[in-house]
Structures are given as structure tokens and as C-alpha cells.
């Protein structure tokens, strides 16, 4: 069994609310979770689910009401733990009077590198996130996507073993998302542990060894994406084409959607061969036959839909 990179036991966070701050709003409810070394873990959940709260608790930015957490065997209260982790906050914001190069150099100073090492690292990581040309531009002139890249660079600048990324794809265009995904995959190949929250389920499905779904501050499910979604086939999708002026078989035509002389139809698994036979008889050209399985997105929406109403953030009055 691999060592645990992240161990979270009963982590709970209540925030005081109201004018007199006497009521408490539970933002995270007894989160217990572990992530192995080298694993890529996706933290999923709707807005306000407690994902950022969890990250902030692990980073020591806020303090837990109850529970403990350890990263690579060290308590989150131990400042030495921070040598082994990197963190990119959600929608990162940095000192806008600095250039990207100066900011990375500033952060590198917290890791006892010599001036030469710092210079070399900063140049290398600016290149990695595609900001070499903008390295000497003040951050106040950066776009949101560029700030996101600086955020990633500062998080991995010191080669941390565990990397926390809070919504790393948020605000990025498709190209930027692809680049961030490639960076995460490269970190994964290097054996780093990656813990990231995201709204983009397709990214989680592609990148993660395991995912956890948080709703209303409670962990609703954890596992490999393929374990969480049922392997049952929901139906079969058939794409086919008919001759110019031709028509699809009548039994399929009612259910099919047409684009030019192409058709798409979903049939139950049991009716597949009958449908294929009808298409053969009508001399249609079959383009593809694909089994339809539930996606992580289906699983996510099912969980969120089922739990959200029941798990509205708990409020309790202080005695």
C-alpha cells in the first residue's frame, strides 16, 4: 500500500453568521478523506459545497472547528509542511505592481534558493506556463488567463510533492485549459500528488485517478470515475446515412434526428440487431454504433440533485 499524501479526519468548519454572529453556519461537515502519494484527486461539487473551504483549511488560511488533517505525515499546523506543498487559490490575485518574473522570484525566496537558482527556476517556470514573453510585464496588465498561469507557476516553482489547485481551469479559454491540463498531466507523470477542485467534469474524468463529490459541506461519494458511474449500457447510438433522395426505415425514422442525409438514433440494447437489419435492408450506410453509458457528469448531477435539497448548509444556534 502506498503512503498517504493527504489524510483528513473529521474536518469541520463553522462560520458565525448574523449581526450578532451568534448563529453558526456549517460550511464543511466532518470531512474524512485520504489521498495516496502520486494520486490525482479531483474534488467536485457545486458552488458553495465547501471545496474552497477545504483547501483553505489544508493551507492553514482558516482554522478548523473540529477535526485534523495531515499532509505527508505532518500536521497542517506545522509550517514545515508548506515546504512540500504548492497551492494555487481560486481566481488568484497577486501584487499587481510586480512583474511575473519579480513575483516568482519573491516567492522563490521562501525556499532558500541562491540568487542563481532563483533566476534559473523563474525562467524555467515562466517558459513552462507560456509566459516567457510577458515575464517583465507588470501583473496589473495581465488577463485573467495569464494570472491563472502565474498562479500555477508559483504553486509548482519549488517542485512540491503535493500540489493543490483550486479551480485551475476557471476563466481559461479552450487553449488555456488544454495547457493547464497538460501541466497537470506532466506533474502526474512525475509522480506528484495532485488535489484539485473543478467544475469541469470532463477534465476530472480525464485527469483523475479518483474523485470526491462534495455537496452542502458533506462528502457524498469517493472513488475512481469508472467505479462511480455504472457500467450498465443505457442504450445504443447509431449514426447512419441514406442515399440522396432515400429515406430511413420507417420504424427508426420516428425516433431519429436528421442532419442533411445523416441520421442519429438511440435504440435499446435488445433492439440493436433488428435495427441494424432494417438499415441493411434499406441500404443505409452505417457510420457508427456506440453504446451509451452514464458519464461522471450524470453521476454528479444525480448526486447533487438528490442531496442538495436535503443538505442545505446546517445552521445551529450557539447555546
Amino acid at each position: 500500500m502506498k503512503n498517504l499524501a493527504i489524510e483528513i479526519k473529521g474536518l469541520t468548519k463553522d462560520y458565525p453568521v448574523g449581526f450578532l454572529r451568534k448563529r453558526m453556519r456549517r460550511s464543511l461537515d466532518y470531512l474524512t478523506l485520504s489521498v495516496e502519494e502520486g494520486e490525482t484527486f479531483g474534488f467536485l461539487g457545486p458552488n458553495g459545497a465547501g471545496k474552497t473551504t477545504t483547501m483553505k483549511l489544508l493551507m492553514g488560511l482558516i482554522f478548523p472547528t473540529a477535526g485534523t488533517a495531515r499532509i505527508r505525515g505532518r500536521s497542517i499546523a506545522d509550517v514545515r509542511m508548506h515546504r512540500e506543498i504548492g497551492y494555487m487559490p481560486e481566481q488568484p490575485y497577486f501584487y499587481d505592481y510586480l512583474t511575473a518574473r519579480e513575483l516568482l522570484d519573491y516567492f522563490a525566496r521562501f525556499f532558500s534558493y541562491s540568487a542563481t537558482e532563483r533566476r534559473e527556476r523563474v525562467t524555467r517556470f515562466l517558459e513552462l506556463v507560456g509566459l516567457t514573453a510577458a515575464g517583465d510585464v507588470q501583473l496589473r496588465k495581465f488577463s485573467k488567463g495569464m494570472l491563472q498561469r502565474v498562479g500555477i507557476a508559483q504553486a509548482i516553482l519549488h517542485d512540491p510533492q503535493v500540489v493543490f489547485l483550486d479551480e485551475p481551469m476557471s476563466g481559461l479559454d479552450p487553449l488555456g485549459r488544454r495547457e493547464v491540463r497538460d501541466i497537470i498531466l506532466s506533474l502526474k507523470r512525475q509522480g506528484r500528488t495532485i488535489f484539485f477542485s473543478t467544475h469541469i467534469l470532463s477534465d476530472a474524468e480525464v485527469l483523475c485517478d479518483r474523485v470526491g463529490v462534495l455537496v452542502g459541506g458533506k462528502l457524498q461519494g469517493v472513488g475512481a470515475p469508472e467505479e462511480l458511474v455504472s457500467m450498465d449500457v443505457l442504450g445504443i447510438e447509431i449514426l447512419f446515412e441514406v442515399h440522396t433522395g432515400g429515406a430511413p426505415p420507417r420504424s427508426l425514422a420516428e425516433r431519429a434526428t436528421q442532419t442533411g442525409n445523416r441520421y442519429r438514433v438511440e435504440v435499446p440494447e435488445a433492439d440493436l440487431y433488428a435495427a441494424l437489419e432494417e438499415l441493411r435492408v434499406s441500404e443505409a450506410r452505417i457510420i457508427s454504433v456506440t453504446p451509451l453509458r452514464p458519464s461522471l457528469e450524470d453521476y454528479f448531477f444525480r448526486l447533487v440533485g438528490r442531496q442538495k435539497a436535503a443538505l442545505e448548509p446546517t445552521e445551529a444556534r450557539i447555546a
Partner: protein
Amino acid sequence: MSTMPAAVAVNTFREAVRDRVLYNLIFFALMMIGAAILVGQISIGVERLVIVNLGLSAISIFGIIMAIFIGVGLVYKEMEKRTLYSLLAKPIRRWEFLVGKFAGLLLTLVVNTALMTLGLAAALFYVSRSFERSDVGILTAVYFILLELALITALALFFSCFSSPMLSTLYTLGIYVAGVFAPDIKGVSEYSQSPALASLARFVYYLLPNFHNFNVIAAAAHGETIPFALVWHNTLYAALYVIVILLAASAVFSGRNLK
């Protein structure tokens, strides 16, 4: 000594420079040039007195304004803009961050004060064409202003850990003004007929920083010798007070949940 506070201090200084905080020096320079020319024409025999008084008062006021207005945003701004998130995820303790912020602003104030002192010296030389032995008192007065600014910076930083800039400005300014009138508060404790009021005044007198003791501008302007004992006393007093305030700030900030 950890290098963490030094890194934060240098960045704080850089922020002040890039935010054009030192532009106030231009106003100071213009004021000193104007004063020197004017004083040369209207005051016979008291040019030095007027220039030293005016110069040292301006150095003090400019410094106090900078210490308060930059100081109250030192921590608050980093929390509001969330620049602290990435920083505190690095291996830096919260107290190291606070010490760095304090040292960074103090460095800014020292540079600012040093440049203004040079301006004052230039104006003084312009009006009297020479320096006198008693002018050492001017440097002592400048040193006391710096001690005063260190105290004000620590106070502003302390309030910045838990309060908005507007409230922090009011608190810091309030304590400064009360501290300037420390001898009057002591007077109340000595001459009050009410024992309760006397006790309260005594408590407030000992609690508040005594800014009155740092003001030797008049003595410096008149060329009086400032006792060495006062230099030691003020240095020790300011150092201890700053340490206590920074410890209190650290205690507050270390338990603070960031938004």
C-alpha cells in the same frame, strides 16, 4: 534570523516605491526651498530657528501621515485582495509576515526621513552658509521622529490585523493624539479630586504610548543639548513598546480566519 521577514520587508518597500509614495519628497523639497528663500528675506537673526522648526515639523507630519495611511492597509489590503493566500501557503509563519510588513514600512519611512533630513540640511546651509556644533541636536530630533514613527507603524499594523483602514486610522490617530497629551493625562491623575478619575487617568497614562517625550523639535531648533539619558530612555521605551504591540498583533493575526 529568518530570511522570510526580510523578503516581505523588501517587497513592502518596493510596493511603496512603485506606488509613488516617495513623491511626497517633492512637496517637502518645494516647501523647504520656498521657506529658505522667504525666511532669508523676512527674519533677521532667527533664520536657523525658523528653518529647523519648520523642517523638523514637516518631517514629523509627513512621516506620521505615511505611517498611518500606509500602516493601516499593511495587513488589511493583503487580506482583502487575497494576495496573502499564495504567500501564507509558503513556509512562512504569520508573525514573520507581520515583522516583514513592519520592517518594510519602517525602511520606507527611514529612507523618506533621511532624504527629507538632507533637504533640511541643504536649506539650513543655504540660509546660514555653515553648520554649527549644536546642529547635532537636529539629528537627535530626527532620530526621535523615527522612533515615534516606528511606534505609530506598529500601532497601525496592529489595528490593520482586525479592522478596516478607516477605523484603524481613527484608532491610531486617536492614540497618537492622546499620547502627545500624555503629560496632561498625568496631570489629571495627580490633581483630580476624584480617586476613581485619578486611578483611571493613571491607568491610561501608563497604557498609552507617551509621544510627548519624543518631541524635541523646539530644543533642537534653539540649539539646546539633548541629554544622552533621554536618547537611551526613548530608544528603550520605543523598542519595548514596539515589541509588545507586534506580539499583540501576532497573537491576533495568528488566530485569524482569512476571508
